[in-house]
Every structure is written in C-alpha cells, then in structure tokens.
C-alpha cells in the first residue's frame, strides 16, 4: 500500500517541478509582457498545486495534511487573482501587447509599444 503512495507522491512532485521549470523558461524566452504573464500564470498555480498534492502523500500526521490543504486553497485563490490584477494594471497603463512580429516588418510604426 505505501509503495503506491510513494510512487504517486513522487509522480506528482515530478510533474510539479517540471511545470515550475517550464514556467521559468517561459518567463525568459517569451517576447512580450503578456505572453510571459500567460506562461507564469498557468504554470505557477498548477505547478504549485501539483507539488503540494505530492507533498500531501508524504505528510506524517493530519495536522500537516490540513496545513497543506490550506496552502493549496490559498495558492489556488491567490494565483489567478494576482495575474488578473497584473494584466488589468498593465493594460491600464497603456502597455500595448506586441501584436505582430515587428522585426521582419520594418515599415510598421513602433507606436504600439
């Protein structure tokens, strides 16, 4: 029985950490603010959720299990809200998303950035 718990816990941890790294890489590689925001927003909440669920499998007693549930609920509530507020504030301060590839189209005016 505990072999299954260990394996599933390890599996969740693996997926979670892979998502976190992909979020980080996405943060660096994407050209424009909004695409980066998308990358981080998605992987942050999901990766954190996966790792926390993975940890739940290893938690010794009920107290730690309940604390992990609280952290999971908190991250699920807070993650998307902060991304929403961030995008709203950025859009409010006329930070236009880069709509088309500027480098190969030379004549487009650079007004949209």
């Amino acid at each position, binding site marked *: 029985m505990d072999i299954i718990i260990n394996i599933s*816990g*390890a599996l969740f*941890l*693996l997926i*979670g*950490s*892979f998502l*976190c*790294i992909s*979020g*980080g*890489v996405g*943060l*660096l590689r994407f050209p424009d*603010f909004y695409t*980066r*925001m998308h990358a*981080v927003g998605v992987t*942050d909440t999901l*990766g*954190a959720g996966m*790792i*926390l669920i*993975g*940890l739940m499998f*290893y*938690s*010794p*007693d009920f*107290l*730690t299990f309940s*604390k*992990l549930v*609280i*952290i999971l609920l*908190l*991250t699920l509530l*807070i*993650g998307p*809200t*902060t*991304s929403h*507020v*961030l995008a709203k*504030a*950025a859009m*409010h*301060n*006329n*930070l236009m998303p880069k709509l088309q590839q500027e480098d190969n189209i030379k004549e487009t005016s650079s007004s949209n950035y």
Partner: protein
Amino acid sequence: MFIAATLAIFVAMILAIIRGIVGPTLYDRILAVNMFGTKTVLLISLLGFVMGRPEFLDIAIVYALINFISVIGVLRYSDTNKLKHTPSNEKPLDKEY
C-alpha cells in the same frame, strides 16, 4: 525525491531573478516578484519535509499572504494618477519605466 524537487524550485527561482533584474518594463519586474513569491512558498514547504519539521508550513502560509499583499500594494500604488478625477494635465507615466 525532495532534493530533486527543491533543486527544480531553485532553478525556477534563479530564472525569476534574472527576469526581475533584466525585465524592461516595470510590470515584468512585478511578474518576477510574484513568481518568486510563489516559488518561495513551495521551497519552504519542501524544506519543511526535507528537514522533517512540519512547523515550516506556518511560514509558507504567511509567505503566500504577504506575497499577495505586496503585489497588490505595488499595483495599487504604481498607477495612482489614473484615479485623479480632473483630467490630469501632466502626461501619464512615461513610456519607458
């Protein structure tokens, strides 16, 4: 198994710091701070399990709250002059932050 997860979180945090320093616009930096915060929450809970002391989870909860409050604070005070009612004659925030 925990060590592998903590290393992965470390790598993600380093990437977030790089974006935090390089980030052209102010909002990239806020994004980096936000991502860094969530990663530290995970790091603390993993450290709690690695060191066998589950009290660390209290700190992880506080981290999540404080990260939320500081990102809200930054956003609330970074676009203040948008709230002025009279058409503010001074130009909005200059383009390049």
